[in-house]
């Protein structure tokens, strides 16, 4: 990595940004989301916070412009291809500002120029990083096809930004100074929790999650806090109740109910509010069987079930291996897809046929990803 001459950086930790105009290539909400997500990758490894302003001056002014004269700076744009965007080092006036070439086709996919990916690079400049010579770094100046399954910051980018903004000041003291980013195709991939959500499958790992639609090859990778800011990182279990458009998240002896992107007031609540005895300290994994209207909660080598129709919880837990032959130990995560259950145990995944009551396939944990 490298920084600008004189190493300019922001003297404050809370920075404001304003989107001056929108590209017609995307809906304004999509532009807002891409920009917010681009800032969030930098805030995830620094003490910086970014606040959107809708009027007045802001530290980082963001605009879309065509050609050279229309956006009044020293670096003209050049039509489709070539230069796609540029941004200025921290400072007054034009300092920190990011300009995007409207002649590009801005997308939220892997086609054209992915706005999130380009914005993340440009905001690296806005924060004080100059171009990197490492071809794997986000700050390498050549655009390469966006891969949504990979966290865009390379260790070189993290080292660079943390040389400017002290990572020791990150709010959560349990976070490591140099975060280890999960590799979706690595042999050691494990999950904290897995659930369906509105037709997609969501895989949780520490403070990130992957989202995958079964019919689409690509997989998206995001920060949990970007969607659900009040949820803790490293959830133990999660399951969806599709007919209520709800997800229940579990961590320790607490749970949260989420409706879409919002957590209604009153959460977290203690586990016993669901009907568990008070000695149940943690749920390892859970799923909801839509056909039976039953939720299943796994803890150590046992499970509890809750019948939604009768609103009754099992009085006693049962052994997992008795109801799910072939699943013999503690479960990390489980979800239901079509008529199968997918159990995760460490680096293994078991496909379990609910009708035949047996394990039908042994899969790798990265089975759902395009590895």
């Amino acid at each position, binding site marked *: 990595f490298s920084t600008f*001459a004189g190493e300019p950086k922001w003297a404050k930790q809370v920075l404001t940004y304003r989107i001056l105009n929108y590209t017609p290539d995307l809906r304004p909400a999509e532009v807002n989301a891409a920009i917010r997500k681009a800032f969030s990758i930098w805030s995830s490894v620094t003490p910086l916070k970014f606040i959107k302003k809708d009027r007045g001056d802001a530290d980082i002014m963001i605009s879309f412009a065509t050609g050279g004269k229309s956006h009044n700076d020293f670096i003209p744009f050049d039509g489709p291809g*070539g*230069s*796609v965007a540029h*941004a200025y080092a921290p400072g007054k006036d034009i300092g920190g500002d990011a300009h995007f070439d409207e002649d*590009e086709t801005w997308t939220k996919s892997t086609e054209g*120029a992915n706005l999130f990916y380009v914005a993340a690079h440009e905001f690296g400049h806005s924060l004080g990083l100059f171009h990197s010579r490492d071809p794997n770094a986000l700050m390498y*100046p050549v*655009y390469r096809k966006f891969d949504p399954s990979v966290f865009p910051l390379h260790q070189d980018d993290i080292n660079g930004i943390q040389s400017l903004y002290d990572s020791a000041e990150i709010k959560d003291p349990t976070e490591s100074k140099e975060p280890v980013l999960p590799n979706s195709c690595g042999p050691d991939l494990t999950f904290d929790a897995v659930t369906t959500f509105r037709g997609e499958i969501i895989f949780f790992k520490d403070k990130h999650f992957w989202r995958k639609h079964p019919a689409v090859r690509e997989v998206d990778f995001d920060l949990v806090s970007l969607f659900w800011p009040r949820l803790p990182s490293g959830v133990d279990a999660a399951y969806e109740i599709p007919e209520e458009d709800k997800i229940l998240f579990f961590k320790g002896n607490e749970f949260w109910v989420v409706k879409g992107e919002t957590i209604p007031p009153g959460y977290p609540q203690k586990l016993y509010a669901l009907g568990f005895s008070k000695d149940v300290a943690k749920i390892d994994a859970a799923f909801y069987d839509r056909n039976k209207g039953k939720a299943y909660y796994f803890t150590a080598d046992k499970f509890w079930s809750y019948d939604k129709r009768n609103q009754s919880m099992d009085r006693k837990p049962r052994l997992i291996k008795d109801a799910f032959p072939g699943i013999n130990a503690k479960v990390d995560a489980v979800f239901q897809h079509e008529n199968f259950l997918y159990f995760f145990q460490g680096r293994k995944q078991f496909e379990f046929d609910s009708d035949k009551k047996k394990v039908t396939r042994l899969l790798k944990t990265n089975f759902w990803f395009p590895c």
Partner: protein
Amino acid sequence: FPAHTGQKKEEGMQLIQKYLENYYGFKKDGESFIWKSNSAVTKKIKEMQEFFGLEVTGRPDSSALDLVQKSRCGFPDVAG
């Protein structure tokens, strides 16, 4: 029909020159664009090839030409 290599070479040089002007602060010296091993353009191409981890030849070879035709951040690679 074989490509007109002379014309292709000229186009490649123009691409490289434009690229160096945009991102490496290169200014063409005088009217003619003369190719010499110690010319300013050779030095700038070497600088560019070194930055991108390409083989440093000082010539607009295929890897340098490939690179200048890719989309990129429009911020010049000269920090000052």
